[in-house]
C-alpha cells in the first residue's frame, strides 16, 4: 500500500486559485441572474490526492509531483449549498488534464454548472519543436511561392 502523500503546498495554492476562479464564475452567474439578491460565500473544503503515479522523474525541472489531485469547493446559492469537485492530473510538472465533477442537487444550480463544464477548456503553453522527438509536424499548409510573393508585395505596398 502506498503511504499517504502530503500535497505540495504550491500545488494546493494552485488548486485554490483555480477553484476560487471557478467558484467566482459560478457566483457571478448566479448573481447576474438573481439581481444580487443573495449573499455568497466561498470556501475550499478539502484537498486530497486521490491517486499517484509518481515516476520519480526528478530530472525534469518540476515543482509538482506527478499524480492526480482533487479538491472540492463549495458555495452558497439561492437554492442552498452547492459544491464542485475539481480533479487535476499533473505529469512532469504540467497539468495534463482537468475535470469537473458537479454535485449540484438543486436543479437550477446544476444547470449553471453543466453550462460551465461544457465551456471549460484546457490551456496549453507549448514546447519548442527541437525539445520533442517528432517524425513530422502538422499545422496549416505551407503556401506556394506564388502566394508568398503576392503577400510580400501586398505588405510592401502597405508600407509605401
Amino acid at each position, binding site marked *: 500500500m502506498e503511504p499517504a502523500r502530503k500535497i505540495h503546498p504550491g500545488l494546493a495554492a494552485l488548486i485554490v486559485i483555480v477553484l476560487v476562479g471557478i467558484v467566482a464564475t459560478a457566483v457571478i452567474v448566479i448573481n447576474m441572474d438573481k439581481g444580487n439578491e443573495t449573499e455568497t460565500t466561498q470556501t475550499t473544503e478539502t484537498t486530497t490526492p486521490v491517486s499517484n503515479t509518481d515516476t520519480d522523474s526528478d530530472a525534469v525541472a518540476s515543482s509538482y509531483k506527478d499524480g492526480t489531485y482533487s479538491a472540492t469547493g463549495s458555495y452558497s446559492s439561492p437554492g442552498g449549498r452547492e459544491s464542485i469537485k475539481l480533479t487535476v492530473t499533473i505529469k512532469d510538472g*504540467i497539468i*495534463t488534464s482537468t475535470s469537473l465533477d458537479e454535485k449540484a442537487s438543486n436543479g437550477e444550480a446544476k444547470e449553471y454548472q453543466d453550462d460551465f463544464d461544457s465551456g471549460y*477548456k*484546457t*490551456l*496549453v*503553453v*507549448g*514546447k*519548442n*519543436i527541437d525539445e*520533442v*522527438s*517528432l*517524425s*513530422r*509536424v*502538422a*499545422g*496549416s*499548409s*505551407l*503556401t*506556394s*511561392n*506564388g*502566394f508568398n*510573393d*503576392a*503577400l510580400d508585395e*501586398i505588405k510592401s505596398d502597405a508600407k509605401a
Partner: protein
Amino acid sequence: MQKHSHSFEAIGTEWVIETPAKLSEQILLAIHDRIEAFDVTYSRFRNDSLVHEVSVHDGVFAFPHDAVRLFDFYRKMYALTNSKVTPLIGDMLERAGYDTNYTLIAKEQTPVVSWDDAMRWNSEVLHTTQPVTLDVGAAGKGYLVDLLGGLLEKEEILEYVIDASGDLRHRGSDLNRIGLEDPREPGKVIGVIDVMNKSLCASAVNRRAWGNGLHHIFDPDTMSPTKEIIATWVIADDTMTADGIATSLFFVEPEIMNDTYRFEYVRMHADGAIDYSPAFEGKLF
C-alpha cells in the same frame, strides 16, 4: 524502417512521400500524373481547369468519376454544418482576394448561392443554373492524398507516409509521432500524437492569411473569415474525412459531426484555449 523521402511542390503546397524503398521512376510518374489530373479538374487557380470552365458559364459538365465521392461528402458536410461548409464558397474567396492571381485585395462581398439553387449532381455529371466558382479546399487535398495512397497500395507499397503539408496519411507498422504546430508560434508545438494506419489533418488560419484579418476559411453567413477557432487537428481512418472534419470544426461543435463520422480532434480557440475529444490519445503540453 529505412526511409526514402520524395519531396516536391504541387497544388500550391509542399509534399513529402516517405517509403521503405526508393520509389521507381514509373511510380513517381504515375503519382505526378494523378496529381495533374486532379489539379486540372478541381483547381480554381488555373485557367485550363474544369472548375474554371464551370465558373465561366452555366451548363452540363462531365467530371471524372472521382468527383462522386468528393461531392457526396461535401453534400453531407453541407447538411451537417447548416450550409456553412460549401464548395460554392469559391466566389466569396475570390472576392476576398484569394483568387487565381493572388490579388489579395478584398472587394465587396455578396452572399454565397445555395447548393440547390446553383447546382445538381447526377453521379459525376454536374448541372449548373449559373456560373459558380467551386472550391474544394475543405476536403480536396485530403481526398487527393487518399487517391495517391490507393495508387501506392495498388503497386504493393503498403508502408508509407504521404504528407501534403497539413494533410497526412500513414500506412504500415511504424509509429509516426506528429507534432501539433502552434498556429500562434510556428516552431512550437502544443502537443504530439502517434499516428498509425490513420490520417491526420491540420487546419489553421495563420498561413493562408492576408490583408486585414483575412484568411482562407470563410463563413458564408457572416461573409467574413471565421474568428472563434484558430486551428483544428482531426484524426480519422481516411484523409478526406479528416480534412473535411478539420474544416467543419471551425463552424460547428464536434458533437454535430460525431453522429455520422468517427474521428478524434483537438481545437485551439482564439484565446488559446484547447478542447479535444475524450478519447484523444495524444499529449498536450
